[in-house]
């Protein structure tokens, strides 16, 4: 029954959508100037690890934080500086480069750290597990978000 109702209402819906400028608003599609943390992460990882390939994904929209947050990130770093290093050392290098962000508004950081050979044989970005809402009502996260806004 409901789809039928929606079909009838569609013309009205469409015109409403066109009149609402925020209807197609996607926080992660904002111009660079509104994503300072993402830019900082990109800049710092580039400087520290001279990556062959770097991806910085803001995954905050997948978690229980307000839209437009820069609190949860996934990074993929492909660098020959990782050659011969165990995973933990690679991750520590990334953590070190992003020390400021991690003690500031970045609450979660997923890391994939590959050598160029590893990336060449398996060029895939891992997926984050589904959020279980832990950030909701978490005062530490609220403080970090506030720090990010200031």
């Amino acid at each position: 029954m409901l789809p039928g109702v929606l079909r009838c209402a569609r013309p009205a819906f469409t015109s409403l959508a066109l009149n609402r400028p925020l209807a197609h608003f996607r926080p992660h599609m904002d111009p660079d100037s509104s994503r300072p943390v993402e830019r900082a992460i990109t800049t710092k990882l580039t400087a520290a690890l001279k990556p062959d390939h770097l991806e910085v994904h803001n995954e905050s929209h997948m978690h229980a934080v307000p839209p437009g947050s820069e609190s949860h990130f996934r990074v993929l770093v492909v660098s020959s500086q990782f050659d011969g290093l165990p995973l933990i050392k690679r991750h520590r290098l990334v953590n070190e480069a992003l020390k400021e962000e991690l003690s500031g508004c970045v609450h979660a950081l997923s890391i994939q750290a590959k050598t160029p050979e590893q990336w060449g044989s398996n060029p895939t970005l891992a997926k984050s597990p589904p959020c279980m809402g832990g950030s909701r009502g978490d005062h530490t996260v609220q403080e970090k978000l506030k720090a990010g806004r200031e």
Partner: protein
Amino acid sequence: MNAIIRSTARCLRAGAAAVYLPVRAGARVWSASPPRRLLCAAADLQKDLGAMVKKDKVVVFMKGTPAQPMCGFSNAVVQILRMHGVDQYAAYNVLDDGELREGVKVFSNWPTIPQVYFSGEFVGGCDILLQMHQNGDLVEELKKLGIHSALLNAEKESK
């Protein structure tokens, strides 16, 4: 039971600091209320953490409990351990105690939760455990702890 005896003994020691009761994954949960901190200096906490990570073969600092994780990354760690049949491990819920939450980050020099320890040695977080699981390293590391991964049985049965 052992955890209660150990934490009681710790209480009776002079200058006892925090009382941490881990949740035993796979066992009855008896620590219903958050641990009470007596006099706790940050240094005491770091000392306590040193003991906590060595007390059990597998130690996880996570958000929530193995029965009820409160974070997708913590849940992933629980699920991976479960897949390998590891259900006897100590799990500390950092959401119960803000000082523990910050203290373990200092202790491990690692900025995020969850954190996994094998035999007192820091292994990493969710990403590392997942990659170890995917590339077979986790089975090997568990073997070194004297833990036979359930996935080895599954592999044997399929042959």
